């Protein structure tokens, strides 16, 4: 049986761990509120943008002159997967879920004989990807200085990606992140962002609004013409999608961290109870032994 002193030290260390997890839980809860607001505030913009780009895209017949970001390069050989994770851990399975979704996509593509490259945003995605796919990481965007994702960050990432798209012979770009559903549910998602994915009627992303628009293409007057608007819009659309992913990630991360830390605090509480019982039993056993020793000593006289 563990000695009294060892038990006492053990209880002390679990208690201080509990303090840490409790503090992290509260910090995450307060940051979550902020992040959630940001994520919700950014949704209208990205939804409108997606709608507009989709409706524009449906009006243009892709030809050799149409923008590459819309029509693609005509090939389907090299895929780039942007893996957006958080910089910190202690958030349950949050990061590993994103990485797993990205890996599943990558393995699928590799099985089809495609080349897969990775672009890493955030620190936590790197180790696994590096171990499994080694040299396929073409770049990493350092987010360690970034407390809250700003649109400027997203623009930098998007610009980097668009530049690479033009020069590195990449045909398709996917974005892997976690969609924030609620504090308890973050949904790892892999979306195709370049070329703009054609919308199928069965596509869950196609909301009633978009479906309605596609069904009744009113005679819209464009100024300048469709192609020029698109050329202007498409790079911006990518920045918007990246921005949204970053915000969703941020909110999801705090949600996940809050839940994980809540569990950890509860587990620590259980452990403290168990250890205290064990401590008290041991203490009683020691007292009993001492009493027996005294009594038998007295009897022997």
């Amino acid at each position: 049986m563990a000695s009294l002193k060892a038990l006492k030290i053990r209880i002390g260390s679990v208690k201080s761990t509990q303090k840490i997890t409790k503090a992290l839980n509260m910090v995450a809860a307060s940051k979550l509120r902020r992040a959630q607001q940001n994520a919700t505030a950014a949704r209208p913009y990205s939804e409108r943008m997606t709608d507009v780009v989709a409706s524009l895209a449906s009006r243009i017949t892709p030809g050799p002159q149409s923008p590459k970001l819309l029509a693609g390069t005509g090939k389907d050989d090299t895929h780039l997967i942007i893996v957006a994770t958080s910089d910190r851990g202690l958030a349950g399975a949050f990061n590993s879920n994103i990485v797993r979704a990205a890996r599943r996509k990558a393995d699928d593509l590799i099985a089809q004989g495609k080349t897969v490259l990775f672009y890493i945003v955030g620190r936590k995605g790197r180790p696994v990807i590096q171990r499994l796919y080694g040299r396929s990481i073409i770049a990493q965007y350092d987010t360690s200085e970034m407390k809250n994702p700003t649109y400027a960050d997203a623009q930098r990432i998007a610009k980097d990606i668009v530049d690479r798209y033009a020069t590195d012979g990449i045909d398709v770009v996917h974005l892997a992140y976690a969609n924030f559903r609620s504090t308890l549910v973050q949904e790892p998602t892999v979306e195709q962002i370049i070329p703009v994915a054609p919308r199928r009627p069965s596509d869950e992303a196609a909301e009633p609004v978009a479906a309605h628009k596609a069904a009744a293409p009113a005679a819209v007057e464009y100024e300048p013409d469709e192609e020029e608007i698109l050329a202007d819009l498409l790079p911006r659309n990518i920045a918007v999608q990246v921005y949204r992913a970053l915000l969703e990630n941020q909110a999801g991360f705090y949600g996940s961290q809050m839940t994980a830390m809540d569990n950890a605090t509860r587990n620590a509480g259980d452990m403290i109870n168990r250890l205290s019982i064990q401590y008290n039993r041991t203490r009683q056993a020691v007292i009993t032994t001492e009493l027996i020793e005294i009594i038998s000593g007295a009897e022997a006289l």
Partner: protein
Amino acid sequence: MAELHFELVTPDKLVMSDDVHMVVVPGVEGESGIMAGHAPYMTTLRNGEIAVYRSQGAQPERIPVTGGFAEVSDRGLTVLAESAG
């Protein structure tokens, strides 16, 4: 006269969503005043000011915007800008 539903959206937030009389947007090919019942229309914007007239003859409310575009549909006018205000 019917009011025009006007929304100004940036990546950070929905800046304005209101029914107004007229909005003048700085399109790349010139300013255009949008009122209710305008035909479907889309234009990219140059950096400049949007003028929102809440009612006829009222003093316009001016909002500087950068990098955006405006879309008029049957749901009204939507301006998506990278920054506003």
